[in-house]
């Protein structure tokens, strides 16, 4: 089977890929940490988060630290599965051309 078919369009973007990578190894991450990690603007990050949220790969958790709002993001089971599949496809493609 052609592994290209397993590559996920949603992850065909460095920022969305970065957000998902970080959420695979952390339970939750907040907006500012993601921003620092990816070195991008608020608006840019927000739009990619929206994209991942619409695909059902991440969920948004709104909370408070003291009085300040603290929004964190978490990968859903669907998102984790999709990411693993994408990763496996990438690895397979590299191995098959070696």
């Amino acid at each position, binding site marked *: 089977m052609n592994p290209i078919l397993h590559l996920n369009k949603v992850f065909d973007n460095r920022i969305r*890929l*970065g957000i998902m*990578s970080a959420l695979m190894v952390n339970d939750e991450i907040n907006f500012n940490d993601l921003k620092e990690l990816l070195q991008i603007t608020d608006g840019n990050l927000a739009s990619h988060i929206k994209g991942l949220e619409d695909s059902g790969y991440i969920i948004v958790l709104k909370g408070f630290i003291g009085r300040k709002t603290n929004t964190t993001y978490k990968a859903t089971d669907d998102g984790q599965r999709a990411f693993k599949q994408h990763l496996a496809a990438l690895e397979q493609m590299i191995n098959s*051309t070696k």
Partner: protein
Amino acid sequence: MNNEDVKQQEELRHIKQMMERSSRFISLSGLSGIAAGTCALVGAYFARHAIIKSDGAVLQNLDNDLYISSLNGSFSLSDLLNNKLVQIAALTFMASLVSSFVFTFLRSKTTNVSVWGSTSKRLFINLSVPLFVGGIFLVKLIQFGIVGLIAPGCLIFYGLALINASKYTLKEVRYLGYSQLLLGIINLWFIGKGLWFWAAGFGGLHIIYGLIMWLKYERQ
């Protein structure tokens, strides 16, 4: 290798990097290790002199006074702080903390990872818990006059703290932890030579570790 391949490998590298950067504090500088090690050696030198000059009385004072005061139930922090060796130890600790912070702070400017972000907080907590418990344990040892176990105790608790913390920072920290543990354990069979082991661990090992890390990651 074709373009597609390069793109995919680049993508995998990006994934790995994002996973590491989001879960580990990578700004820890090798120079911090060298600085802390140097402070430890200077501290050990002064401690050695204090012991020789007082003909061992400092150690005995630490031993007797505190033991007696603890029997009287009057053991207090000021008893402890009045001892010359304890003062040297406290100064050494603060100097190494400040100097190692400076280099890591400077490094954080190049890596673009803030010194007080979620990765550094996680590292700090995981390092602090074993150290804090060790600290209480060691104060109790001093209180009961078991001075010979202080140096091995420092090394063992510090080693455990490093191994625990290594999950949240550069993975090489784990080997520094194992080395400190090994020194601490060996020291248990050479009670009375504690200062030498202490200097080798907190001074020597820190400098060697720092140098290796600096050569590996930071030298341009």
